[in-house]
């Protein structure tokens, strides 16, 4: 099984540790993992700003680069949702579209749904607050959104809870948005900032040492606030925790 590693552009540039953790997690499962170096961006920022003509060439590149693999895996629910749910409007008639859509997975769902693995060897003896990134939750259905009256589950939580010594804290608002939202973070900076602070506060009052999420974009926004306000809360991507990385200082 050949897996194409899809590392979102800003993760490549700013958070290499997250890419490495993803690579290690997959390699440890005995998979053949390849990172096609021509990849850049899936086109989500342009698409979500309404600029389809700017997003389309990126979507086409993506399909061509990744069509060669059995699976495409990314440490980002948001970018995977772009491919799975929003490429249809951009490149729906591309010959590789349907195949790539069906084999592109977010990291945690790739473990639980494709590899059928719900236990990860390792330990993480810390109090962890899980931020449910919205697109992984409501666009990929990686867990039960609190609005829906269906059975409770979370693919990310299951994997985290399998680590020895980990304690997931209880938040007062289990899946409220952090306020990143792409260009929203800049265009609506005031509301975005307030949303971020409120999320951080919730994790603090719950006693979290480490705040984690399946999307680094949420964490870039939250850690930007945490650093500015010198809050004692560590921020790690889910992949880093699952790969057994030390708490980032």
């Amino acid at each position, binding site marked *: 099984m050949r897996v194409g590693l899809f590392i979102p552009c800003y993760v490549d540039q700013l958070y290499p540790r997250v890419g490495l953790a993803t690579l290690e997690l997959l390699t440890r499962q005995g998979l053949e993992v390849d990172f096609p170096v021509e990849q850049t961006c899936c086109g989500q920022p342009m698409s979500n700003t309404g600029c*389809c003509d700017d997003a389309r060439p990126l979507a086409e590149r993506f399909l061509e680069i990744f069509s060669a693999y059995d699976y495409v895996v990314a440490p980002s629910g948001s970018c995977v949702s772009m491919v799975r749910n929003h490429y249809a409007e951009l490149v729906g008639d591309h010959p590789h579209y349907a195949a790539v859509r069906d084999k592109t997975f977010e990291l945690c769902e790739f473990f639980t749904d494709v590899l059928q693995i719900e236990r990860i060897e390792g330990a993480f003896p810390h109090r962890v607050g899980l931020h449910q990134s919205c697109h992984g939750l409501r666009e990929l259905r990686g867990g039960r959104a609190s609005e829906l009256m269906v059975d409770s589950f979370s693919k990310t939580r299951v994997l985290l809870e399998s680590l020895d010594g980990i304690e997931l804290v209880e938040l007062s608002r289990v899946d409220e948005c952090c306020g990143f939202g792409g260009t929203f973070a800049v265009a609506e900076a005031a509301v975005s900032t307030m949303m971020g602070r409120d999320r951080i506060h919730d994790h603090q009052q719950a006693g979290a040492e480490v705040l984690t999420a399946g999307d680094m974009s949420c964490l870039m926004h939250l850690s930007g606030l945490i650093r500015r306000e010198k809050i004692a809360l560590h921020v790690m991507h889910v992949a880093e925790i699952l790969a057994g990385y030390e708490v980032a200082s």
Partner: protein
Amino acid sequence: MSHSGVDHPRLAAEFVKNDSRAHWHDQALWFVRAKRDKAAQSLPEWETLRERASQIKRNVSANLADYLEEFEANATKMGATVHWARDAAEHNQIVLGLLERHNAKRVVKSKSMLTEECHLNPFLERHGLNVVDTDLGEWIVQLRNEPPSHIVLPAIHIKKEEVGELFHRKIGTDSGASDPTYLARAARKRLREEFLAADAGITGVNFAIAETGGIVVCTNEGNADLGTSLPKLHIACMGIEKLIPRADDLSVFLRLLARSATGQPITTYSSHFHGPREGCEMHIVLVDNGRSNILGSDEFRRSLNCIRCGACMNTCPVFRRSGGHSYKTAVPGPIGSILAPSRDAQQYASLPFACSLCGSCSDVCPVKIDLHHQLLTWRREITVRGHLPWTKRVSMKMARIVLVRPAIYRMAGFLLRKVVLRMPRALLYNPWNAWGKSRDLPPPPKQTFRQIYQQRHGK
């Protein structure tokens, strides 16, 4: 955003500036959302009901003309008079004409978002009529000379102390009084006088049943009953999308509506009107006002399924923190940000962007409108029509130019990591850095992921 249009980011920033008030507003609405969760949870068939409601509404949209005719025929049979209004102006004219024909001077209204949409109150007042909104929240905002900030909780942005002060000035309650029971009693006494003196009652309509020709109005205060039981003239104003096919369908919607709106199992009063009382007149005004345009659009047709429960507002993390007035539309929040641009895309171009695309609204909506996807579709429509601000247009174009060529992408990344993010703080956090006003930028790593990968794999 566009210069003439609604500047949601600016209005939202003003609301957020008062941190304690913004948090109070957020928590008040979150409390309602939490009540909704409990109420929804109490019904094992919740998701089935949502699906059923959405199917019924889809059928109504597909056959609206037939259902409207069936409704008109049946309502007329029961003695009501049905009027058709193409737009807000026609609607207002019809209502005024009816009031004038009955020589009505004093009008009591129960809650109706449609009349807000048509700006009926100011219109009637300009023609010398005395109009009183009898829903307590509506009455409060009317006394303050403001529009409602929420479709179910019109005065949710006002604290009880402020209501006390308002009532003290307007109806002479004790100075400094803020006890809700005391204030509500005072309001009730005053409104009772208005009911007794009224010449006509205007109500909204929650559901109009094609099969029976009856209409249903849901209130918690019984003010629709009182406002239509005393005067001889009842005018009910409704958008054409309020139709449901059969009386049986009502059970689906009544169970969803109040639970979604306030977490109650059902509204305190569900008032059914089947024709006028003896010796009285009942008129039903059916209003289009842009609805048939929406009906004709594949992308946005589903927004007409809305039953105006307000749940998408209560759950929206942006609405809770920016307040209903920041949208400058009669219907604010997620659904309002879809409906408003279809009336005027340039004027309301900022609203579909007042959203982090979290998707909570779509999951909370009792009729399963895919609200956040429609907001995204509106963003595209706004770009195509040329209403996207140039800053966004240009930055997205530049991003595309960089990202389609790996070499340029690597170079841009290099500049970002080695130059931009290493600039002295004073330079980096300049006034144009909207991100950096409240947030630090990430510390630049020495190498990118691809560099490390290529080293390790000798590629």
